[in-house]
């Protein structure tokens, strides 16, 4: 079969496997600092690709999303299946977690049926060994009819030979041995094949046997295609499926998968020897505490507290070091900014660069490091397990806790992080709540105004109020956002000691998201702001906003421009406030009530432009609008309450 090839005739190798099988780790080992991986089931939803060189031969590698099966039930499964059926891949590398071989084999068998030349990467052999699973590689090769390469991707072992075996396969393609089911199934398949309209399988891009098996399994997509081609044939196939189910007295939708399970178990027993190790493992002991209904909450609390402690301590330290040179540069630039247009733009540009590296990055980096560490160690799914019950009450999902915590660093990567959630509803809901979380830019305001001028307890109060408000908003929004909420069904991976390299790679990848998606917008916004300031828009802006600032919220008129520009540059809200008031001694010109009102307003109101842009990209204009309105509404209400009740 002549398969279409992507760019410049490079052989295309697609990686597929179950979530958390080490597929992305394998891809990373080959591709360098490019793909995101995690010890969290289902980290890849769209696919990543990279050009690699192995033994002097070049290839394009595609990292497909992890899937538990090839049934088209969720986004990840559909992406993987469509890609494999598109014929773009020359070779499929099925990555298998050897430590859970019995269940991984089922996906391998399904992939074999798709008729793409295939190589098996038998990954995590070290973990399998620890669990007492001994795999006979030669026998597995013989049974599957494809090359099997043992790998330990996290340490780079075997990854080059996977590519090299895959390239051999691309040169001389051959198909493996798809599973043979018991006699009744095989007879039924033959009956369906006899009646299959010509061209149906070619149109789908798969072997005829695959199409017949998918019809027996109950695959809505294939059923539709078959029904369009020949309704008579589809009716026959569905009758056959019913007949088979009755024959075996199994529910219709699980008849074939039960047979496949039997074949997989049989294969597993033939190729693997299991010597059960000691009864109580380290994991069991750790889980006994970490996932204990009471102790586990303590662990979660400690984990979150240390996350913030590290982020604030290191953030403060880093911010001081990084912003110093920028501050001296700005001291030179600032007096000239009013002289000419160019100087004003230049100052805006430098401020934009400084805001990114001097204010956001110092807090974002340690936060991302801690999150990545928790993720790679295997703690995050356990944290999701602990908070799932509580989060369900406000309409969220245990997994939502991850983007929400990322939000404290920067809302932009946090919103991108909602991709790990399964249903559109969960993604939208979490994306709407993320902008309510005070990111590092807003934290700077809370620390400098509330904590420093009113006291640390007030600052804690602001954070507590923020969480309560987010919970109430989640509760209300969850009744508005339609769609189904995914029930939790989550693999709890073993604990792992991640190599530092792998943690740092993830930190880099997420930082890259900030650098690419948020930073340029901050710089552009900052330049625009420089120009507006030069044109002298400040007084006009203050006058326009006067009914809001002075009338409604009781703040000094001068803060109007701060609030407006804060949309463009949230991390500059504080500096802007100093400029607007003409002093950094805020307590001298603003009353405690005004300070608290202003801080609350800044904490909640309109997300910055970079966040809005990300919302538009991830959930669309409409929801980005809802989010903006929601934030502004809450900000106004909070600041107004402070004015009235202080």
């Amino acid at each position, binding site marked *: 079969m002549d398969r279409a090839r992507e760019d410049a005739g490079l052989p295309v190798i697609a990686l597929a496997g179950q979530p958390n099988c080490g597929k992305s780790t394998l891809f990373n080992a080959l591709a360098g600092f490019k793909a995101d991986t995690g010890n969290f089931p289902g980290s890849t939803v769209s696919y990543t690709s990279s050009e690699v060189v192995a033994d002097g031969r070049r290839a394009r590698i595609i990292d497909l999303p992890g899937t538990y099966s090839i049934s088209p039930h969720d986004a990840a499964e559909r992406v993987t299946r469509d890609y494999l059926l598109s014929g773009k891949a020359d070779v499929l590398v099925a990555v298998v977690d050897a430590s859970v071989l019995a269940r991984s084999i089922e996906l391998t068998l399904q992939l074999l049926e798709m008729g793409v030349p295939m190589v098996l990467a038998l990954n995590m052999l070290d973990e399998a060994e620890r669990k007492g699973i001994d795999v006979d590689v030669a026998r597995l090769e013989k049974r599957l009819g494809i090359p099997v390469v043992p790998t330990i991707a996290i340490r780079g072992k075997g990854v080059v030979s996977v590519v090299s075996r895959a390239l051999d396969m691309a040169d001389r393609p051959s198909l493996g041995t798809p599973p043979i089911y018991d006699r009744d199934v095989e007879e039924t398949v033959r009956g369906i094949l006899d009646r299959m309209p010509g061209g149906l399988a070619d149109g789908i891009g798969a072997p005829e046997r695959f199409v017949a098996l998918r019809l027996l399994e109950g695959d809505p997509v294939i059923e539709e295609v078959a029904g369009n081609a020949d309704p008579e044939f589809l009716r026959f196939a569905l009758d056959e499926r019913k007949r088979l189910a009755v024959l075996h007295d199994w529910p219709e939708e699980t008849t074939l998968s039960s047979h496949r399970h039997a074949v997989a178990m049989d294969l597993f027993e033939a190729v693997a020897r299991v010597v059960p190790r000691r009864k109580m493992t380290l994991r069991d002991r750790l889980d006994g505490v970490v996932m204990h209904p009471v102790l586990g*909450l303590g662990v979660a609390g400690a984990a979150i507290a240390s996350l913030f402690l590290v982020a604030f301590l290191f953030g403060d330290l880093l911010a001081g070091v990084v912003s110093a040179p920028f501050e001296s540069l700005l001291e030179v630039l600032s007096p000239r900014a009013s002289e000419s247009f160019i100087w004003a733009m230049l100052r805006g540009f430098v401020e934009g660069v400084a805001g990114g590296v001097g204010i956001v990055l110092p807090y974002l980096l340690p936060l991302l490091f801690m999150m990545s560490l928790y993720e790679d160690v295997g703690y995050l799914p356990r944290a999701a397990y602990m908070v799932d019950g509580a989060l369900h009450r406000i309409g969220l999902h245990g997994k939502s806790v991850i983007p929400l915590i990322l939000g404290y660093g920067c809302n932009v990567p946090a919103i991108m992080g909602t991709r790990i959630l399964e249903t559109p509803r969960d993604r939208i809901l979490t994306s709407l709540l993320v902008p309510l979380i005070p990111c590092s830019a807003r934290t700077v305001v809370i620390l400098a105004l509330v904590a420093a001028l009113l006291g640390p307890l007030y600052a804690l109060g602001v954070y507590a109020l923020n969480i309560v408000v987010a919970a109430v908003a989640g509760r209300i929004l969850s009744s508005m956002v339609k769609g189904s909420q995914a029930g939790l069904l989550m693999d709890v991976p073993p604990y792992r000691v991640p190599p530092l390299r792998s943690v740092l790679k993830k930190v880099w990848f997420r930082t890259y998201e900030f650098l690419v998606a948020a930073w340029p917008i901050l710089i552009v916004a900052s330049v625009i702001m420089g120009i507006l300031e030069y044109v002298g828009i400040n007084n006009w802006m203050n006058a326009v906003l006067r009914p809001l600032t002075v009338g409604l919220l009781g703040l000094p008129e001068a803060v109007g421009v701060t609030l407006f520009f804060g949309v463009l540059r949230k991390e500059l809200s504080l500096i802007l406030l100093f400029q607007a008031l003409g002093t950094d001694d805020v307590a001298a010109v603003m009353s405690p009530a005004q300070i608290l009102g202003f801080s609350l307003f800044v904490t909640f109101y309109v997300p910055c432009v970079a966040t809005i842009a990300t919302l538009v990209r991830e959930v669309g204009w409409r929801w980005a609008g809802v989010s903006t309105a929601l934030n502004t509404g809450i900000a106004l209400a909070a600041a107004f309450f402070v004015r009235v009740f202080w």
Partner: protein
Amino acid sequence: MTLEQASKGSRVRVLKRASGHRFASSLDGMGIHVGDELLVVGYAPFHGPILVEIPSSGVRVALGRGMAEKLHVEPVEA
């Protein structure tokens, strides 16, 4: 009874999974089949998920209560 009603530390066998191709296929992916034995390891707080272990493979899976209600099981004598 359903998995939701199984007590902590007990061993159960899966008798039936509520209908639904999607549910069945996700359970297959996790390695939970009809006839498989499960060990109920524990419960999360606030009426949260149930943690089960598949003793044959050592795999641990968390199931939300809604999911656990759809899994019919019978107790297994130790």
